[in-house]
């Protein structure tokens, strides 16, 4: 099957198929393949069929919205009214969200169909989707390997054709890294572009929602539906949202693209570097002006990121206390015992590590040495990008240092897992937009190329990725077992 969102919209508009038909097809594919992949935590079959019927009526009446009738999967981190929202944690295993996230509300309003909620690393903390209370997700290209994380279920679902598109969130690479490892296209917008209201918070100054799809053109449609000011998110941007599809067809002649030398240095798998080089040549043929740049503080991004993300996480996760919702331990002897055991039983190992480090970094006597220091380095990292964008329009690099690794290969060593994020996390620290798109394979596993743009220049990312996808077909490849 493997239709794009663009093809589904055309098919629905032309009456070639109904939303109910196509929704049933996707639900059937999920029933067939999810046992092997574990992409979904919840499949909302009845709701999907209801929404599809409503979409068909809307289409028949001729008042369809941007995505009316298009089936979409949502990361199980977006609150969905009346539907379990677990964040892949035991502590929220029984949590039925009492309201919709703004992103979900926008998709509902445009008439999209929700297929279900996708698997992820618990509270979005991980780069492999192995930190889920509901088990690992398999990479559709090689089911012994990880799909990346934290939005691994969304990326794998799109790669395997269990959904034409899906939502994700990106705090340190959680959209771009799984997109790369699963061979799909994903975009992390500028901080403040997509509302965080109803997105269960991890690192509030870093978190940003965005879409996964099979092409840049599809991502443009999804981002159009998601982006925009929301009064309920205090850091939401009032910058107007352009028509992302309108500029896709413009060429990239003369576009200045910078290659940060730090992203092509030691640590990058040389086979992967070769694949990226080929894609760079393609962009050069399309007229791009490729030049070398430097982001000198790249090496600092991992320690800086982990201090900020863990400090913010330890504060955000203090709301899970076993009192108002979520897991509560049995027979607490007093209130402190209730808090400690409910949290101790409810959170997984990686989440506990991060709460502990974050608590330590924020505790009396250590704040300046850790959190304040990290915020200073954060500015230096942002300044590097600002200096680079004086001379280039886009920045290009690999999304990950290596292709997907085997499930279990890095679980015993949290630090080696953190190093997977070297090329993705600076962007979150700076709050810039970035995207990953497939550009080839190493050992039968997809390679992702990353593009960064200046603030609110998502249109240029999508346009450049679209132009590349007009002269390549890596984004259209499907894993044989799921074709």
């Amino acid at each position: 099957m493997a239709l794009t969102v663009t093809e589904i919209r055309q098919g629905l508009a032309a009456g070639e198929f109904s939303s109910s038909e196509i929704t049933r097809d996707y639900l059937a594919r999920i029933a067939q393949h999810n046992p092997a992949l574990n992409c979904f935590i919840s499949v909302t079959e009845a709701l999907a069929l209801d929404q599809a019927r409503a979409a068909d009526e809307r289409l028949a009446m001729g008042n369809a919205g941007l995505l009316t009738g298009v089936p979409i999967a949502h990361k199980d981190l977006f609150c969905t009214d009346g539907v379990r929202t677990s964040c892949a944690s035991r502590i929220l295993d029984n949590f039925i969200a009492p309201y919709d996230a703004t992103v979900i509300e926008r998709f509902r309003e445009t008439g999209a169909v929700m297929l279900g909620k996708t698997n992820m690393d618990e509270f979005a903390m991980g780069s492999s989707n192995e930190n889920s209370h509901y088990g690992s997700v398999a990479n559709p290209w090689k089911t012994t390997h990880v799909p990346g994380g934290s939005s691994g279920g969304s990326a794998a679902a799109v790669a395997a054709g269990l959904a034409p598109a899906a939502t994700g969130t990106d705090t340190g690479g959680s959209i771009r890294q799984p997109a790369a490892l699963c061979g799909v296209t994903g975009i992390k917008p500028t901080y403040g572009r997509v509302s965080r209201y109803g997105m269960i918070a991890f690192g509030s100054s870093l978190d940003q929602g965005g879409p996964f799809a099979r092409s840049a053109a599809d991502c443009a449609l999804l981002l159009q539906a998601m982006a925009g000011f929301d009064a309920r998110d205090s850091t939401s941007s009032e910058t107007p949202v352009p028509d992302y599809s309108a500029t896709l067809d413009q060429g990239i002649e003369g576009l200045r693209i910078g290659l940060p030398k730090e992203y092509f240095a030691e640590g990058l798998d040389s086979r992967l570097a070769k694949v990226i080089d080929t894609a760079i040549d393609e962009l050069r043929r399309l007229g791009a002006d490729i030049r070398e740049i430097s982001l000198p503080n790249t090496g600092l991004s991992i320690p800086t990121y982990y201090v900020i993300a863990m400090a913010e996480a330890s504060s955000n996760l203090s709301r899970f206390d076993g009192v108002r919702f979520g897991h509560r331990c049995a027979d607490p002897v007093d209130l402190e015992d209730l808090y400690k055991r409910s949290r101790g039983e409810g959170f997984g190992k990686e989440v506990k590590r991060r709460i502990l480090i974050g608590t330590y970094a924020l505790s009396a006597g250590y704040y300046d040495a850790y959190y304040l220091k990290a915020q200073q380095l954060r500015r230096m990292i942002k300044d590097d990008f600002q200096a680079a964008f004086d001379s280039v329009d886009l920045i290009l690099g690999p999304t990950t240092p290596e292709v997907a690794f085997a499930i279990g290969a890095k679980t015993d060593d949290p630090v080696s897992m953190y190093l997977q994020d070297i090329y993705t996390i600076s962007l979150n620290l700076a709050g810039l937009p970035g995207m990953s798109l497939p550009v080839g394979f190493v050992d039968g596993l997809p390679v992702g190329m990353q593009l960064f743009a200046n603030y609110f220049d998502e249109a240029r990312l999508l346009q450049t990725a679209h132009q590349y996808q007009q002269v390549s077909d890596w984004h259209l490849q499907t894993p044989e077992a799921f074709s």
Partner: protein
Amino acid sequence: MTLKSDDVRSIAHLARLHIDDDSVDQYVDDLSSILTLVDQMNLVDSSGVKPLANPLDASQRLRVDEVTESNQRDKFQQIAPDVADGFYRVPRVIE
């Protein structure tokens, strides 16, 4: 930076997080190796650099202090572990 098991226990208490006695040693190792990674921050002199809290250097938007949400207590309490008479129940706090 190396932590001791007492450090891990006191941080866990601050975080109101129960950790099993037999996993304390593992946390000592894991957290110490994370802090060693974090210590790389000290390789750089950042004195005088203004800390960056919001990536866009924006400040929190304020709104008029008026009620915008309706009361949904019954809906919210449906997902609570223990409620009575519209209250959330916890173990006795005051003797």
